[in-house]
């Protein structure tokens, strides 16, 4: 199902288009997500370039770089919802630990040519925990009256579903990434979830712009 992978790659154009459309947006909370979308667009463009030029070079190093940047930006995104100083400091500790782990992983366990199974799995667990903490924090503050109109609820729900869905795939990623005899392509699951996440990103950014316009 090469077609599904290509569609999945191209769906990044939707949210990144929204980022460029709202380039001067003053919504600080979604800034890490906007940056993440631009990075994803650049990396997806490189992957697509490799694909159309028929270069069969191993591009797993891109996945290592992407995982690292994605985790850092998501930690910064979730950090913006917490006001207590000690929790904000814990986010920095988490960020530092993850950075150290990524470097150690490259040197000792999974080289730049291997699938970054360990950082991806840790990233999934961290994002799932942070999503639940976000919900708990949201209800403790009880400042949002309608969740359906709250863009961050859409964003965090999308992230939770995506990382929960790719969790198993990431655990066994290094084992099955090149296997074609599973009866299905493992990467198709990722493609489906990636399309879903990109749609959620688009909805959330669109809602963010509408919220700011109505607030002016």
């Amino acid at each position, binding site marked *: 199902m090469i077609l599904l992978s290509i569609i999945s790659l191209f769906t990044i154009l939707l949210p990144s288009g929204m980022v460029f459309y709202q380039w001067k947006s003053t919504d600080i909370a979604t800034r890490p997500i906007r940056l993440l979308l631009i990075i994803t667009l650049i990396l997806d463009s490189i992957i697509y370039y490799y694909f159309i030029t028929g270069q069969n070079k191993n591009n797993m190093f891109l996945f290592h770089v992407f995982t690292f940047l994605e985790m850092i930006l998501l930690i910064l995104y979730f950090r913006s919802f917490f006001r207590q100083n000690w929790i904000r400091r814990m986010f920095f500790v988490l960020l530092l630990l993850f950075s150290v782990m990524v470097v150690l992983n490259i040197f000792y366990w999974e080289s730049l040519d291997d699938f970054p199974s360990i950082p991806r799995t840790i990233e999934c667990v961290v994002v799932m925990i942070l*999503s639940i903490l976000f919900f708990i924090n949201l209800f403790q503050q009880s400042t949002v009256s309608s*969740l359906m109109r709250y863009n961050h609820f859409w964003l965090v*729900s999308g992230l939770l579903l995506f990382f929960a*869905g790719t969790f*198993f795939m990431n655990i066994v990623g290094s084992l099955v990434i090149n296997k074609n005899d599973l009866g299905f392509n493992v990467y198709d699951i990722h493609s489906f979830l990636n399309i879903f996440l990109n749609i959620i990103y688009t909805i959330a950014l669109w809602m963010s712009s509408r919220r700011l316009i109505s607030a002016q």
Partner: protein
Amino acid sequence: MDEQQTLDLGTVIILGTMGMIILAMGVVVFFFIYQRRMIAKQNELTMLELQHQKELMGAVIQTKELEQRRIALELHDDVGSTLTAIKFSVSSFTIGDKDKELLNNNLADAIQKVRRISNDLLPSILEELGLITAVKSLIKTLNDNKTVNYVFESFGEQIRHPKDVELACYRVLQELLNNILKYAHATEVRVEIVLSQSGLVVIVTDDGDGFVPEDHTNHERPSLGLKNIESRIQQIKGEITYEKRLPKGTKVLIDWKRHE
């Protein structure tokens, strides 16, 4: 054997992924429903608190009226009677005519003041003769003050509504007229009352600076007088609306409907 293990791995991935997605969806749905319930509960609590505040305000007004009634009766029956008795006794005193006249004048003045205070605290005319006569009397008193011209008109049937409704309307009218005199810089004030079996309408119009409470709620706390007006109208389940008139002035409309 190896092929079997590969297929098992595929099943584990599919089932695991589906399980995780269902779990994540469950979490999202749980928080969504939980939040809706929490908001509903908060709204319910706010409503209860508002209701409680209304009841408290009602109790405060009722207590105030009772206390005013007690003081008014004390003044009228006790202090007033004592002063009148003293006035009669003075005539039998062996003092100079000039001193007697001065004493008599002072006592008459004191009796008049006690009557006025007593009447302000408990407008007996309202209880005995009804809203129209009481307002007529109030307007007559106010017209003695020549700075503002007060005009009063009544329409409809000569009927009586419940005492608490008449008292609330009278007190609100007193407060409105007092506010106009203090803040509106008006030269003419018009009071109209329409009485019918189904309810009553009180309309107060002036040619002053123009006032609506909404203009003051953003940066100021509503005054005690306005709160009082609101509470009294809520107590009788009536409605009050303020609107600015063109080119200047304010129109206040009190509408009360009989609830059978």
